[in-house]
C-alpha cells in the first residue's frame, strides 16, 4: 500500500442494502483491506488499520448526500439513486456491478387511462421520464412494496428497478416500458477530487483494473 500523507486519507461511503455485498466483494478484488468488521458491523464509521482509509455505512439514498457535502470523499452508489437525488458530485466510474433496470410496470391488461397515476420510490425519475414521453401523470411517492399499488388500485402503473423480474411476476405484473439500465458507480466529492487527487486517482485506478476482469 502506498504511503500517503495524512491529507490524502480517504473516507468512502458504502451503501447498505441491495448492492452492499457485491460492492464489498468488488473492493476486496480491488485489493482494499475490507475486514469482516465491515460486513457484519453495526458501527457506522469503520476505520481501516494501517491504511489511509475509513468507511461510512449509509443508507443508499444518503450516499450522494454525504459525498456532495464532503463528509465522505468518495462513495459507491447505484445510478438509480444518482438519477433521483441529482447531487453535485463527480461520477467517476461505472463499476458494472449491481445491474438492474429502471422500468414501468403494470397489470397485463393495462390500458391508457384518463387520469394516469404512477406509484414509485423514484418520483423525480418517474416525472422526468413521463414528461419526456409527452404524458402528464400524477406521481405517488411510496417507500416500499411498490408492486402493491396496481393490485389495490392506488395507481395504474409503477416505476421501479427490476433485476430478475421475480417480484413483478409473483405479483402478476408485467414490464411495460424500459426506462434505463442501472449499474453501480464510483462518485467523488468536488473538492476531494482536487484536494486528494492522488488518493482518488489511486482508488479509481484500482477499481478500473477490476472492471474488465469481471466481464
Amino acid at each position, binding site marked *: 500500500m502506498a504511503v500517503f500523507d495524512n491529507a490524502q486519507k480517504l473516507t468512502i461511503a458504502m451503501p447498505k442494502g441491495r448492492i452492499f455485498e457485491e460492492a464489498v466483494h468488488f473492493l476486496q478484488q480491488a485489493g482494499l483491506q475490507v475486514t469482516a468488521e465491515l460486513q457484519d458491523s453495526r458501527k457506522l464509521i469503520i476505520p481501516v488499520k494501517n491504511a489511509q482509509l475509513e468507511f461510512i455505512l449509509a443508507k443508499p439514498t444518503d450516499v450522494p448526500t454525504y459525498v456532495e*457535502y*464532503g463528509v465522505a470523499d468518495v462513495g459507491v452508489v447505484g445510478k438509480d439513486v444518482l438519477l433521483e437525488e441529482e447531487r453535485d458530485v*463527480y*461520477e467517476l*466510474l*461505472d463499476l458494472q456491478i449491481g445491474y438492474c433496470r429502471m422500468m414501468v410496470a403494470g397489470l397485463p391488461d393495462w390500458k391508457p387511462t384518463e387520469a394516469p397515476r404512477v406509484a414509485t420510490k423514484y418520483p423525480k425519475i418517474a416525472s422526468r421520464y413521463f414528461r419526456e414521453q409527452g404524458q402528464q401523470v400524477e406521481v405517488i411517492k411510496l417507500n416500499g412494496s411498490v408492486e402493491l399499488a396496481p393490485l389495490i388500485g392506488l395507481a395504474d402503473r409503477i416505476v421501479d428497478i427490476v433485476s430478475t423480474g421475480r417480484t413483478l411476476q409473483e405479483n402478476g405484473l408485467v414490464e411495460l416500458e424500459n426506462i434505463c439500465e442501472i449499474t453501480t458507480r464510483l462518485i467523488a466529492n*468536488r*473538492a*476531494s477530487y482536487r484536494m486528494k*487527487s492522488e488518493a482518488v486517482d489511486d482508488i479509481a485506478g484500482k477499481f478500473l483494473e477490476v472492471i474488465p476482469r469481471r466481464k
Partner: protein
Amino acid sequence: MAKPLGFEKPLGMRDILPESLAKQRHLERLLGQCISRWGYEEISTPSLEYYDTVGAASATLTDRMFRLLDKQGHTVVLRPDMTTPIARVVSSLYKDVPVPIRLFYQANVFRAQEKEAGRNAEFFQTGIELIGDASDDADAEAIALAVFCLRAAGVETFRIAVGHVDFVDGLLEDAIEQESDRNQFRQFLYERDFVGFRQLLSTLDIASEAKDRLEALLRLRGGKAKIAEAYELTGNEKARRAVDTIASLWEALEGYGVTDDLLLDFNLIINLNYYTGVVFEGYAADLGSPLLGGGRYDHLLAQFGRPASATGFAIKMDRLLQVTPALDSQPASRILLCYTADRRKKALAEAQLLREDGLVVVTRLVSEETDIAALQDKGYTKVICLTEQGE
C-alpha cells in the same frame, strides 16, 4: 406553504450573529488589504439591477435569480453576481477611463435555491476584475492574487485547479464532427459525469485512436508534467494554443512562487458558455465545495457596448470562514460603568474619557438597591461604580 412563523426566514437566507460577523469583517479587511496592494480599487454597485441589462448578461441562470417588479413595471433582479454590474459600470460611467482597469468588491449577491440546508440564497463574495488586459500575465495575476488572498486569510491547505476552455473545445472539434455531440460531451464534463462521457464515447463511430485521446482527457490533471502530455494529446491548433497559454501562465506563476498550490486540470469546465479562456477553481482541505472560482470572460463587456478582454475571480466568504482559523482576539477590555442618577453627569463624562483611550465602556443607570455583583458576570473585565456604596 404554511404561513411563516415568527422565527422563520425565506429559504437560503441567514442571520450572521456578532461573533461570526466579527470574523467575517476581519477576513474582509485582510483580503481588502491584500487586494489593494495589487492596485485594485474597491467599488460598490446597487443591489437591484434591470433584468434586461445585468440579469440577461449574467452567467447565472435566469431561474436562479430573484426577480421582482419596480414601481414603473420593469423587471428587476437582486444582483446574482458582481461581475456583470462592474461590466456595466466599466462600459458606462468608466467608458473614458483607459484600460487596464483593476476593481474589487466585497458584497452580497443573491441566487435563489431550491434545495435544502447548506445552500445560501444570499452570500458574501470578495472578488476582483481585471479588465482590458488579454495577456497570459493577466490570467497569471488573477490566479496568483487568488493564492495570496487565501494565504492572507490563513487557509492552511488549499489547491487551485487550472484549465482552459479551448483545450476541451479543440480536442472535441478535432475528434467529433457533430456539434450536438460535442455539446453533449461538454455537458457531461460540466455535470462531472465521466461515466456518461465514456458511454457516449463508446457509442460513437470514430477512430479508436481519437477515442483514446478523449478518454485521456478525463485523466489529464497534475503538475507541470501535464503540459507536455497535453501537447502530445492533440495536433489541433486551437487546443495547442490553449496549451501555449497554460505553459506561459505556469512560467509566470513560477515567478509568483505559487505553483505548489496549483493543479492543472484540462477537463475543468466551470460554466458552459460564459468563460472564454483560462478558468480556475479553488478548494481547501475539509471543505466539500469550491472556495473560489474565476477565469477569463472576454465576451461580457461587449454586451454593454465596450468590447474588452477581462478576467477575475470571486471568493465565497461563507466557505472561507469555515476554513480559516478562529480569531485569536484578546477580548478588548470591556468596562461596565454603573452610576446612580445623582452622579450621571460625572459618570457619562468619565465614560467618554475612557472610550477616547480606546476602551470599551458600557454605562448603566442603577439605583442604590441594585446588586452590582450580579451584573459583574456578563463578560466585563472591570466594573466601576459611581454610586454611594461604590465610593
